[in-house]
């Protein structure tokens, strides 16, 4: 156990200014906080859209994400997810939703995007807030800084360019097994692989 893991969850959550601001938006429809979130996350989401092939819809995606943030902010609970994690999942879901709508005639969507991809902290059955979850982002930033570049490259392609492991292998011209082992090494460091059985 590192000292990082021993800090109480509450102080960690309260220290994150973005989570505080998102909470203000949810509780008081605070537009100043909303604007601060836009200035911080708007450019990130725009880059995200551009990186994964939605360049001509990048600003549209930013708008959709922020409208969605406004609407659902009343459900946000800083004890369950950091604002940046919550906002990432909203951006991901809006991207998926946008692509689904582009690829489909409007009638044909029996299952909504949010039925398939969850937003953290919105599962009503969630019994307790885990300490581990609140530590996540800080620990991940710290762990990432120690990962070899080749592992970070693969992860970035999966998350930012939305490439499957196979597509990453094709693009980097390396075997699929190499891509998978780089990801596993990275996830091992990030402690996602705790109880995997056959890796």
């Amino acid at each position, binding site marked *: 156990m590192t000292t990082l893991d021993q800090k109480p969850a509450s102080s960690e959550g309260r220290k994150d200014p973005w989570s505080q601001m998102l909470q203000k938006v949810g509780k008081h429809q605070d537009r100043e906080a909303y*604007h601060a979130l*836009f200035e911080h996350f*708007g450019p*990130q989401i725009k*880059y995200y859209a551009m990186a994964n092939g939605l360049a001509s819809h990048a*600003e549209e995606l930013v*708008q959709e994400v*922020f*409208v969605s943030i*406004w*609407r*659902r902010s*009343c*459900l946000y609970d800083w004890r369950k997810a*950091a604002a*940046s*994690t919550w906002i*990432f999942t909203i*951006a*991901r*879901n809006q*991207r*998926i939703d946008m692509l689904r709508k582009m*690829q*489909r005639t409007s009638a044909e*969507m*029996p*299952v909504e995007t*949010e*039925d*398939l*991809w969850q937003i*953290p902290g919105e*599962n009503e*059955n*969630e019994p307790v807030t*885990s300490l*581990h*979850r609140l530590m*996540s*982002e800080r620990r*991940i930033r710290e762990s*990432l800084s120690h990962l070899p570049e080749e592992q970070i490259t693969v*992860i*970035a392609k*999966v*998350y*930012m360019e*939305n490439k*499957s492991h196979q597509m990453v292998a094709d693009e980097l011209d390396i075997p699929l097994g190499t891509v*998978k082992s780089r*990801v*596993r090494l990275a996830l091992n460091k*990030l*402690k*996602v692989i705790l109880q*995997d*059985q*056959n*890796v």
Partner: protein
Amino acid sequence: MTRHHPDSLSLMEYSAGNLSEPHALCIKLHLDKCSHCRSRVDTLDSLGAVMMEQQPKVTVSESMFDSILSKIDSEPAAEPAAAAAPRVSALQKLLGEDLNSLPWKRQLGDVSVLDITDRFPGQKEQVVLQKLAAGGKAPAHTHRGEETTIVLQGAFADQKGVFNQWDFVVLNDEDEHKPVAVGCEDCITLSVLSAPVKLTGTFTRMLNPFIR
């Protein structure tokens, strides 16, 4: 082969939003019941957030913020109660309340199937529900390509173990198995197939429920 829980690579593809809809459904159904995997996905979602924050900066115009404001002002105020209303699960939307009363097609012996591929328009994989009558046996088979399965009701066992409700299994062409429904309920599974199942016993072609 992955048994009982999705492996980290699949969860990462889920978190990144790169899975097909049927595959995402299998993961989501598992996550709804497995806090351990939910916590793994939370960590992966945080990895996504950190990746997003570490990318090059681009600019967004202030006028965009104004148009966002006018958009939220033109909508009725958010109703916390409505937003927090319990959602109908994806499974209920797709299949209704009662799995047992679906229009099952009896195949051979103890096995019934229902192809629901058409509920996922535009997706490449075949999506099939399979029902193995309580105590019943399925014929030995392997899997061409990869088959992702989640147990929706009851339980089944094969030579590798027992799979209970909401357990997650990925099988490929190296996994020959002969599942048996255990317990007093029919075992119902949802499978996403990248290629049809291949029977390994005799009468294979005739009996294969997946050859059309």
